[in-house]
């Protein structure tokens, strides 16, 4: 065996024989950059002055790679790369279609904004305890989850981003944080374990872990295998990750406890990974099961968005109010998944992109407001307008945007979702979307009125908040994200073109399958050992 005689085997049956073009490496570049710079930050953990620059460089490069990947996918369609030269069902595949590339791109933008905001928000101790390594590793996990084409690999990336988020969540070890983190950690770990369970059943039924491979084999096992049960298990697990009603109580319990930059990043990124996974599983893999579950998903979506908005109305703490608004936004995206039409999906994906940017910006805004008001309690808020009129302008833009009022980015996806609901006669879903908009407007309008227009009424002298000017890093990241929502709101055509293309791709999963398994590739002999085991029985 150890002799060096080459086996007389045609390797082309199992391996990629031509090296992929350089541009295709973009599909793994963002996470490679994230891991390398995460490791560098870990090595320079004690050098708290140099570390932020390494981290920001890493985040900028990650964003550059995300932009490159987006451009590449926009021009050439789905980019596929399989690790270790193995042909697709055997190697672990990374496949970036439009959906993954767009989520990765916006994730990169939000991550960079978070890194910049943290320059001021995270102090020396936070840096020494590893804020930046955790941030970069979490960003790598998130990006990789958007780009992987292998369902077990998706589970691994979920765990990578989860452990990164644990690190960020407990940074500082305040009493409140430990309480929130305990609930967050236990329930999220439970959700990922249930996801793994669903993967196990899927593997036992279909005999493959490659998503494109599962997609083309699902039809043949649909009559004999319990695909509907597996799809329902996936729905449960990812609904928990995405914080859909009624499995969302970990979110309001934990999202307001860490540093505000961490809250903002979580609100922008983590639940959206659950939404991405739902879109991927239910449109690329289980399109038939999605049709069967659509009614249930629609009800979940409607209840999630309305209870989220009502929760926001009932909160006194601005950060907890924002936590409920994250939940309400998840309902909107689920509505897009439930509708399943081209318009509906386009609206759902657009809403996800909008929500990633705006929710992060809102937390950043709340951070500045809380610092100037000495706390986040609405009943003690007031007096911000006279001191910071520019902040009032930013706040108004973001509040109108999250409510879905023109001319900001929240309007268009909601209009699409309402139209898609009415197209299929789901008037109650359209009503829920509009009602949520109204309740959200009331909730954020109240926050605006109390924090900005009302005079301070707690009897404290103005001197308590004569803090220096807000630092450039904080303002820069907030203004950047706000400008993005304004630009998309005023000029939405390019974004709508992209989300419409995503919806088209999602509705025709054969395109995704064909790019992983090109027609000129010889079909691999056999279909993995699991199927052999099956036939042998």
């Amino acid at each position, binding site marked *: 065996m150890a002799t060096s005689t080459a086996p007389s085997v045609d390797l082309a049956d199992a391996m990629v024989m031509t090296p992929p073009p350089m541009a295709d490496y973009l599909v793994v570049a963002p996470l490679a950059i994230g891991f390398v710079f995460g490791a560098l930050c870990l090595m320079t953990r004690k050098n708290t002055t140099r570390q932020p620059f390494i981290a920001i460089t890493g985040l900028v490069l990650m964003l550059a790679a995300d932009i490159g990947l987006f451009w590449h996918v926009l021009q050439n369609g789905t980019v596929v790369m399989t690790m270790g030269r193995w042909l697709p069902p055997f190697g672990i595949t990374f496949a970036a279609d439009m959906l993954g590339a767009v989520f990765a791109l916006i994730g990169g933008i939000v991550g960079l904004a978070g890194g910049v905001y943290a320059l001021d928000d995270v102090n020396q101790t936070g840096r020494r305890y590893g804020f930046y390594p955790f941030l970069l590793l979490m960003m790598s996990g998130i990006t990789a989850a958007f780009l992987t084409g292998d369902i077990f690999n998706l589970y691994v990336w979920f765990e990578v981003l989860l452990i990164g988020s644990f690190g960020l969540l407990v940074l500082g070890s305040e009493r409140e944080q430990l309480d929130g983190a305990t*609930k967050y950690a236990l329930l999220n770990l439970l959700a990922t374990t249930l996801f793994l369970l669903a993967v196990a*059943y899927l*593997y036992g039924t279909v005999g493959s872990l490659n998503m494109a491979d599962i997609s083309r084999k699902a039809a043949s096992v649909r009559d004999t295998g319990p695909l509907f049960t597996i799809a329902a298990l996936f729905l449960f697990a990812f609904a928990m990750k995405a914080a859909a009603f009624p499995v969302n109580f970990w979110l309001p319990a934990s999202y307001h406890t860490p540093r505000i930059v961490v809250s903002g990043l979580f609100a922008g990124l983590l639940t959206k990974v659950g939404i991405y996974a739902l879109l991927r599983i239910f449109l690329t893999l289980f399109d038939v099961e999605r049709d069967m579950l659509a009614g249930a998903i629609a009800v979940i979506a409607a209840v999630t968005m309305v209870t989220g908005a009502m929760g926001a109305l009932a909160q006194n703490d601005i950060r907890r109010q924002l936590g409920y608004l994250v939940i309400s936004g998840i309902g909107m995206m689920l509505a897009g998944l439930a509708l399943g039409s081209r318009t509906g999906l386009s609206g759902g994906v657009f809403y996800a992109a909008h929500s990633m940017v705006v929710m992060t910006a809102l937390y950043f805004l709340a951070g500045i407001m809380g610092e100037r008001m000495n706390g986040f309690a609405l009943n003690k808020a007031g007096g911000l307008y006279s001191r910071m009129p520019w902040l009032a302008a930013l706040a108004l833009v973001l509040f109108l945007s999250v409510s879905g009022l023109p001319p900001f980015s929240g309007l268009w996806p909601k209009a699409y979702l309402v139209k898609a609901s009415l197209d299929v006669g789901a008037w109650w879903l359209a009503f829920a979307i509009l009602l949520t908009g109204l309740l959200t407007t009331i909730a954020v309008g109240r926050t605006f009125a109390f924090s900005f227009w009302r005079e301070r009424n707690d009897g404290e002298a103005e001197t308590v908040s004569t803090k220096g000017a807000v630092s450039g890093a904080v303002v820069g990241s907030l203004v950047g994200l706000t400008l993005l929502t304004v630009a998309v709101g005023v000029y939405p055509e390019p974004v709508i073109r992209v989300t419409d293309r995503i919806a088209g791709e999602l509705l025709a999963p054969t395109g995704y399958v064909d790019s992983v398994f090109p027609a000129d590739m010889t079909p691999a002999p056999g279909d993995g*050992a*699991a199927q052999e085991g*099956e036939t042998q029985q």
Partner: protein
Amino acid sequence: METAMAVLTGLFFATSLYLMLSKHIIRVLLGVAVLGNAVNLTIFTTGRLTREIPPIIPDDAVVPIDAIANPLPQALVLTAIVISFSFFAFLLVLVFRSYQELGTDDTDEMREAEPVDEPAPPLGY
């Protein structure tokens, strides 16, 4: 063989669910640990159990001749074990730290992040 394993994993799931329904966080944690093992056994079983046929290709062949034990679930389980063990270690420390800080492991009393007496939002100026 698969039937016996299915019954065993069922017992594991029942145990972990029972433990996780407790309001004492240490039992919940043990439930999570058992759940991880239940899922691992499920992965192992869904790969189909073939006894005593090692997945080794003979010298003069390039593919296995007979049906062999499925090596892939073992790789998956190995990954899952490593991940679930490291998470369990993290959770153990986290739960111990919150027990130290909050002085309780009763989830009903862990109200630091969501205080019972949180005031209602103001109704007027």
